[in-house]
């Protein structure tokens, strides 16, 4: 329960102290670490405030690497090149994909927000405020959402990129630490864990089954996270499992425009789709799970089974959606307040308007204030 104490102490203290979680002054005697100015980044485990549910973060070193794959790589597609050298600052990343157990805390948020509204408490001042999170609309048809698995340790699926981003906003505001989706460049860096081969374990496709759940071994459904071997940095399911959202807009020719070893480049989206999904999934063939493989999103297809318009900004409704999830990162240097919203909130009018309409006119989804006092307020509702 060490992590619980830690998390309890940290809530409410200023940011400079929060940044200490996962940092040690002295080099640890054992276990992986990443040396940075502030000391040594180490893996950490913390509880989601207000719950007994843990999440584990693993450090990734900064440095440069070649994004993409060589033309000679079997299964390679043209959008994986030309290879471009990029630089990345150190960050922590989730050891596993977000599980249902971890995601349900966010999906249950709407029930609390509804009651706050009924009671006229925790009112919102600015609906686009830095402290406001949109709670996802309730799942309409669970027979669909959980069709491929609903065990607490199964990776959560069918959230949109916006839904995943609001999750990271919610967790950040609860913990006072800065969590967000990884950029495409960070994601591939973490996946490769220093390797240049097709997969983090090498080039031998016969070994994929030891590291990944994919079409050939998944039995056509979700499998529990962390049940295959990790990569060299201790990350599980970067290959296969569920495909993972990253921050970036998808552009087929993006890599040709990455010049002069850019540091932490992000292709910020300026339209609803395509956005990048990485890592392949339980329903994909081996080549789609390679470190460099990219997949463009298409909201109209990913939400094709949504019976309503506007289609849910938080949920996907398609078979492909049943194979899409995410994990989040915490960069060593957090941007300041306003800059953070870029990583969390609706970034194009279409999403913003859909969210407004769903919440304000349809009564689906709800806004609420999130801060470290939220878990107490939710507990008080139970009385």
């Amino acid at each position: 329960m060490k992590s619980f104490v830690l998390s309890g102490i940290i809530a409410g203290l200023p940011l400079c102290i929060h940044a200490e979680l996962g940092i040690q002054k002295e080099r640890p005697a054992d276990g992986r670490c990443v040396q940075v100015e502030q000391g040594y980044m180490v893996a950490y485990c913390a509880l989601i405030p207000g719950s007994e549910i843990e999440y584990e973060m693993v450090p990734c070193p900064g440095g440069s690497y070649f994004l993409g794959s060589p033309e000679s790589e079997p299964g390679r597609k043209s959008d994986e090149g030309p290879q471009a050298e990029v630089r990345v600052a150190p960050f922590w990343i989730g050891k596993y994909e977000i599980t249902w157990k971890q995601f349900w805390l966010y999906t249950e948020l709407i029930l609390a927000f509804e009651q706050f509204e009924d009671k006229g408490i925790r009112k919102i001042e600015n609906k686009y405020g830095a402290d406001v999170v949109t709670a996802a609309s309730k799942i309409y048809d669970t027979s669909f959402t959980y069709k491929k698995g609903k065990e607490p340790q199964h990776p959560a699926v069918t959230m949109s990129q916006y839904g995943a981003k609001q999750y990271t906003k919610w967790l950040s505001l609860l913990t006072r630490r800065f969590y967000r989706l990884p950029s495409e460049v960070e994601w591939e860096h973490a996946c490769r864990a220093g390797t240049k081969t097709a997969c983090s374990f090498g080039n031998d496709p016969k070994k994929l089954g030891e590291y990944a759940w994919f079409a050939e071994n998944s039995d056509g459904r979700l499998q529990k996270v962390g049940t295959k071997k990790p990569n060299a940095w201790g990350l599980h399911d970067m290959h296969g499992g569920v495909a993972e959202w990253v921050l970036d807009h998808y552009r087929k020719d993006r890599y040709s425009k990455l010049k002069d070893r850019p540091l932490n480049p992000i292709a910020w989206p300026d339209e609803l789709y395509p956005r990048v999904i990485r890592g392949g999934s339980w329903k994909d063939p081996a080549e789609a799970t390679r470190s460099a493989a990219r997949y463009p999103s298409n909201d109209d297809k990913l939400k094709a089974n949504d019976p309503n318009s506007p289609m849910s900004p938080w949920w996907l409704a398609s078979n492909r959606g049943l194979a899409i999830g995410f994990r989040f990162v915490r960069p060593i240097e957090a941007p300041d307040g306003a800059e953070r919203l870029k990583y969390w909130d609706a970034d194009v009018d279409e999403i913003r308007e859909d969210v407004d309409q769903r919440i304000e006119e349809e009564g689906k989804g709800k806004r609420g204030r999130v801060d470290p006092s939220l878990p107490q307020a939710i507990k008080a509702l139970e009385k």
Partner: protein
Amino acid sequence: MSNEKETTRRDFMKKTGVTAVSTALAADLMSGGAHAAGNDTLRIGVVGSGGRGTKAAMDAMEADPGVVVTALGDTFEDRARGSLKGLNRKKQYKGRIKVTDETLFSGFDAYKKVIDSVDVVLLTTPPHFRPEHLAYAVDKGKHCFVEKPVAVDAPGVRSVIETCKKAKEKNLSVVSGLCWRYDLGVNATMQQVLEEKAIGEIVAVQSSYNAGTLWHRGDKPDWSRMEYQVRNWLYYTWLSGDHIAEQAIHSLDKCAWLMGDTHPISATGIGGRQQRTGAKWGNIFDHHVVFFEYADGKKVYFTCRQQNGTTNHVDETVLGTEGQARILRHRIQGKNTWRYSGPKPSMYVQEHKALFKSIRDGEPINNGHYMANSTMLAIMGRMCTYTGRTLKWEQCFNSKEKLGPEKYAWEDVPEPKVAMPGRTKFS
């Protein structure tokens, strides 16, 4: 979807007596006043252009490249305008949204103006209004997409049955929004159970639509009580039919399908409201349990629930003499273990593909029988849970109880009472 599969599905539907397709000539269709030729533009209109109606219009455009949207209607002008905005924003439908201020209608009679001006109408208002709207559309010779359920009371069901007979005479297509009938995985599973007898003879069906709660649209000081009820229509039995009809009809429809779209002889039910007790939640229940008995001895054990924090489960488990089938999971276990692994295109698009193909081929589809029968099944279940009495199909079907106010106007209508089993009388 390949033509081969389409043929198979249609043959299957014929064999199981769902609805035999008519072989009417295209020329006959013209007498109904609608286009039939291969590439002609088909003008569609939406009656009830909320979230579902707007998406249904998109599904229609996905299904048929010749479809254009020319009219939108809703009781509320803001809903109709919101719908138009949503449609206009989608790049892929550019040039196909031809709604103007003159063809955007609001008010309780908006449906007439929409129907008068189009070839095909999508009926997607709250279910209360469906029988009247469908009757008007068929009277005017229009093909219809009809959302579920199709009525909230027995007189409404009887009206729909009569209207569908007229539609057949006039060679008009009536396609139901009971969407699982157009899902390829469910069709394949039904074929295994009903045609291939993969689980032997059906003994009973365990059916659940146990889910969480849905939306609420709040209240405003300037809303009359009529406006409050219509905007929050889910929670008023006279508007939605109760959640047993509004949502759980998807489950009851699959049960009916498994029972050959016949009706039960009797049913008994238990229900009430435990979580949603506040006044804002109107007068519907939040759980129902109904046991249906069929003439051939088969049983349907059905539950539905809308309660937060409870275990969700939505599916039909079919118990057979040689195994069990899970309909939505598309799986069979037992002597003939089987799993569907074919394509799963959007069933919402599939139902519109069927509709527009039927119009263009001059082979009208009439889903009237099952949509009325399954709606009545839900209403019968509700009558049992509201009264707490075991009821016979015949008495339910012939019930004279007509739900809703005498007239539709924006005034302060009374708050309907919540039913109390043992005290609420069957009528």
